[in-house]
């Protein structure tokens, strides 16, 4: 819908004022003001670039997942929800305006509610690497994502156990699952091969399991890696097929995040899962109720604090 209250085209004086405004003296003043502003901006960039504490954002992107991990000037984005426009609004809010680079993007598995928003991110931000499995999908969204990845010449990193991303400030994100490299083929049961990532920052740890179902959770427990974490992003938006009792006791989290859309048609999160979490006396934080859920970590030695957005 277009508006135009204030139409000045008839207002001739307005045109004249601008010609007056553009006299040499004023032009010089304007340029000086712009330069001063620029200097201030550059100094604030330099000042803030020295900080390297960790922030973890579970973004409320409706029914879907999107997790932004930001350590100083370095960002990692895990999944992108399904709506690129919404995701870009969230990123604009949490990434400083001068930083147009996301160092690495992770696509846990090729479902639309996880990769839909990534296409716009790859087009908008300068993204260096993409961490994903070889699992493919025949959906238009996945085909588009693939096209944009090759068009932008992103470095592809195969997501399998032991693939690790190290941030300069000490944060380490390591892939725990899938255990081996996947074949390059359309994956009918895409959730089964969701990338699970453990994020460690000193004393603090986060476990992010994509849409991993219970059977695979068991595989993950049996693989022998340390999955004990403070914060768990509940698998598959709280679906009944994820987050088994065994898995919960192996992780022993204090907080769980459920990334889920309001009144979604899947009935996520499932009541059984919620009961299970309550029984284990674990905090439940839901994006549909709280919006973006943010953890601020000041130093590797102290505990991360969940803050209101």
């Amino acid at each position, binding site marked *: 819908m*277009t508006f135009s209250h204030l*139409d000045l085209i008839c*207002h001739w004086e307005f045109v004249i004022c601008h*010609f007056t405004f*553009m006299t040499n003296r004023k032009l010089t003043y304007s340029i000086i003001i712009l330069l001063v502003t620029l200097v201030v901006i550059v100094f604030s960039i330099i000042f803030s670039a020295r900080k390297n504490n960790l922030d973890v954002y579970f973004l409320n992107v409706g029914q879907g997942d999107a997790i932004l991990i930001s350590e100083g000037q370095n960002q990692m984005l895990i999944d992108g929800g399904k709506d690129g426009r*919404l995701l*870009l609004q969230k990123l604009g809010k949490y990434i400083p*305006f001068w930083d147009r680079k996301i160092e690495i993007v992770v696509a846990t598995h090729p479902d639309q509610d996880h990769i839909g928003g990534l296409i716009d991110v790859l087009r908008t931000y300068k993204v260096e690497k993409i961490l994903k499995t070889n699992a493919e999908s025949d959906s238009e969204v996945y085909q*588009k994502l693939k096209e944009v990845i090759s068009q932008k010449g992103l470095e592809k990193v195969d997501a399998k156990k032991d693939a690790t991303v190290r941030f300069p400030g000490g944060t380490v994100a390591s892939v725990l699952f899938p255990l081996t490299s996947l074949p390059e083929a359309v994956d*009918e049961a895409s959730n089964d091969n969701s990338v699970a990532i453990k994020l460690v920052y000193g004393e603090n740890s986060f476990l992010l399991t994509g849409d991993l179902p219970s059977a695979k959770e068991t595989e993950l427990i049996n693989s022998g890696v340390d999955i004990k974490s403070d914060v768990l992003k509940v698998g598959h938006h709280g679906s009944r097929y994820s987050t088994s009792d065994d898995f919960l006791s192996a992780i022993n989290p204090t907080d769980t995040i459920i990334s889920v859309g309001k009144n979604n048609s899947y009935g996520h999160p499932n009541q059984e899962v919620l009961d299970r979490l309550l029984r284990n006396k674990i905090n439940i934080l839901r994006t549909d109720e709280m919006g973006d859920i943010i953890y601020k970590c000041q130093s590797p030695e102290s505990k991360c604090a969940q803050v209101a957005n």
Partner: protein
Amino acid sequence: MLKKELKNSVPFCYNKAMSKSRIFFIILLAFIAGVFVRSFWEINQMIYWLLIVADIIMAAVFYKNKNVLIVFFAISFFVFGAWLTQSRIVKTQNLKLDGQNFRGEALVLKSSPNAFGQNLIVKTTAEKIKLLVQIPKYPEYNYGDLLNVECTLKSIENKNADFDYQMYMAKDGVLYQCDPVKSPTSRGAEQFNGVNKIGENKGNFFLNKIFLVRNLLQENVRKVIPEPERALADGILFGGSNQFPKEIQNDFSKTGMTHIVAVSGYNVTIIAEYLILIGIWIGLWRKRAVWFAIFGIVLFVIMIGLPSSAVRAGVMGTLLLWAMKNGRLANSENAIIFAGAVMLLINPLLLRWDVGFQLSFLATLGIVLISPIWEKSFIKKNKALGISEIIALSLSAQVFVLPIIAYNFHIASLISLLANVLILPIVPLTMLLVFLVSLAGLIFPPLSLVLAWLAFMPLTYEINVIHILAQFPWASIEIENFSGCWVTLYYIILFGIMLFIKNFHNVKFPMINDKSISKSKAQI
């Protein structure tokens, strides 16, 4: 009422007899009145014939009287306007293809993405009918793509009772929506098989290029300015508020600031100024600089997809620039009426079914008619675009558009005056910076990034100020049940008051006076 107004205006003309410009005004007004009357009321076929016959007889009998001849032309143009509208309305009601299957080639004329999909306006190659196609977001289609379409034609549905989407589309000649054939895929999701791309760049060569440039410029802004500032930057330069998140869209409508993201006379004026400055700077003569600006405006209005408000501003801006080139300034009333008549001649349905058209013309009319009164009463003629100037212009425009906004959007902003005062002065700077950002992206991307930091400052200021102002509980009031009757009553009272003040104060129209002419000449 109109006749009285005209009578009163006569003494302001250069001589006692009706000047040519006044005749021109009356005839175009009659045409617009014809369009108006037929847009809102059915007219019996008989009445047209009666009018024409009476008109001709009158002219034949009194052909020696000049005034009668003017009336003759006025009536003829009135009938012409009504008839033109009639024929277009009849076309929109003829939906004989409803329910039929369509299969064939179609050219994409317009594609507008939304959150989860895209709306395409396509024109079929064989039958030349325009269709609305709603499909998922990917794959993306653009202007000039040739598609193979297979679908069922349906008349366009109104999704909510509040907004006549059917007529909104019909005014642009789009009568059917075309629902592509769907078939479930192996995984249960619906796949759209009805649309396949078979060619690219099949549209108008010139338009292809111009849209390519626009996309490049938009892309450059997107790369360096984060959301939601990017959406504002895009809106300020290319028009459109639909890229904002809901909350920001609400903030803008609560503070009555949506107009800054609609390309209107304001933007066009700023662009014209900058173009003239550039023209002079690169060493063009004054007249050539004006041609340069006219050319630039036309290009710009086409580039942003010809929305009504921009076309109006473009036509009027061009008229004013042309007048400037020739050393005489147009009468602004005539410029408005001419722009309106030309647009309605091309598409008479705009008058009733394009809110952008209504707002654009009413706001301009408000500024032309009321601001001289404000100025006369309380504004000292000092520096133009001082705060008092912005207040006068904002108030004038708002008084005229208030009922249209209340009727269509059920809101009236109380804080908009303050918002305008705080925001408008830096809009030209914002436009310039955003434009430089998009241009630098083509030439030297790192410069584009640095400029983006600068452009970010006014953009974020505008968004934050608007957000803060929108939080006040009294920032705006919701208006429900503001019916057409109220709108009519409002305008009758408004024009009544205008007429009274005009007689009382003897305010001179148009507002372009000799002083400003000499000033503008001195400047260029």
